[in-house]
């Protein structure tokens, strides 16, 4: 059995950690799958899926660490006008941070519930907002 649910979020800041833990749990619990695997997958390239402890101080440190790796004022090759868009890119920070965090996470499903540790919050990590973002929760099992 395979189920797929789409979740949609509208970020409101250029960089933002949006806690989607409850929504993912709910998607799994409503899937009808009792034992299997759940995948949380983004359909974008300038945001990420992060699993980490849900504390504001941790969010702040994660964001600051990513900023040190991909600072705003670095001379990015992508900082130019894109003829095929008719618009400027200028979002390499988002692409690099997205590469670091990855665009998915996976959890076991047991007895119809997502199996994850008490400190494992699931975030949509926005790196090029504000934007509307789509996340797919696919549950495979029986």
């Amino acid at each position: 059995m395979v189920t797929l649910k789409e979740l949609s979020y509208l970020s409101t800041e250029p960089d933002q950690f949006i806690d989607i833990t409850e929504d993912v749990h709910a998607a799994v619990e409503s899937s009808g799958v009792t034992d299997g695997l759940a995948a949380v997958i983004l359909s974008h390239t300038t945001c990420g899926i992060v699993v980490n402890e849900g504390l504001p101080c941790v969010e702040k440190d994660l964001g600051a660490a990513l900023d040190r790796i991909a600072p705003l004022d670095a001379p990015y090759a992508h900082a130019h006008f894109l003829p095929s868009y008719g618009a400027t890119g200028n979002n390499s920070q988002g692409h690099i941070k997205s590469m670091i965090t990855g665009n998915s996470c996976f959890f076991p499903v047991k007895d119809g519930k997502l199996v994850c540790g008490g400190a494992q919050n699931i975030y949509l990590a926005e790196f090029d907002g504000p934007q509307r973002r789509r996340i797919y929760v696919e549950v495979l099992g029986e």
Partner: protein
Amino acid sequence: MVIDMLVHPLLYGDIYKPGDGPEGFAFWEREYGMGHMGPMDWEEIEVELNAGDVQLSALMPIDATTASGGCFATNEQIAQIVAAHPDRFIGFASVDPHCPDAAEKLERAFRDLGARGLSLHPAKQGFAPDDPLAEPLYELCETYNRPVVFHAGMSWEPKAPLAQSHPLAFERTIMDHPNVRFSLTHFGWPWVRETVAMLLKYPNCYADTSITYLDSPEEMMSRLFTVDMGEHWFERSFSHQVMFASNTPRFRAFKLKRALDAVPMPDDVRELLYSGNALRFLNGEE
């Protein structure tokens, strides 16, 4: 408060129409020169505006009926968006000077649709700014105390020759109509110093900041205000004539605002850049 003086609402979902007709999105993509972007709903637009502290945006249509077979948003579509969100938008009107009823349409837009000014893109619309065809339009702008936005300097739209958008191509018109306020968009880039000369010589001439065709917004704004211009030119010589503008959807307003926040300038001059000059341009001297 920030006023964004150049927004083309071509990604606004409220006026989205599929297809390749004169108001269709595929027509806009081809003739305006954009791709890989889709319509946005009001929630998305609002958070984007809020991210840049943009309280008010001036929506610019372009009537390219003769040259391209349609409009990049009609005056009615602009009025529709403004009516839905009057606290966040003001609308300009555009008419095609080649059309015999251009002046009549413009007067109707001023009188009935609440248009706050005239948007003309001579290079794209295929006329010279000082062509007698356009004279009745400038006269109407003077009569109704409405400013004119000239799309000047480099614009990405196809079939819009650079030579026809050189800042000096607008000189005769601006000189001959001292009681009409004119803006040269994109700071006339790449002819920044020619635009500076126009600002110095003609107090009814304005320019805007929508010029991130190269580099990052931070690099481009720093270059505009400290390299292409001397670092004190703006505050010393034409502090009342440059307006914040993004040229959305080609550039994101909040990124341009972030870049301008980093350019050193006195607070009172920054306030003029972000909103004061736009109000003066829109309303005239109080």
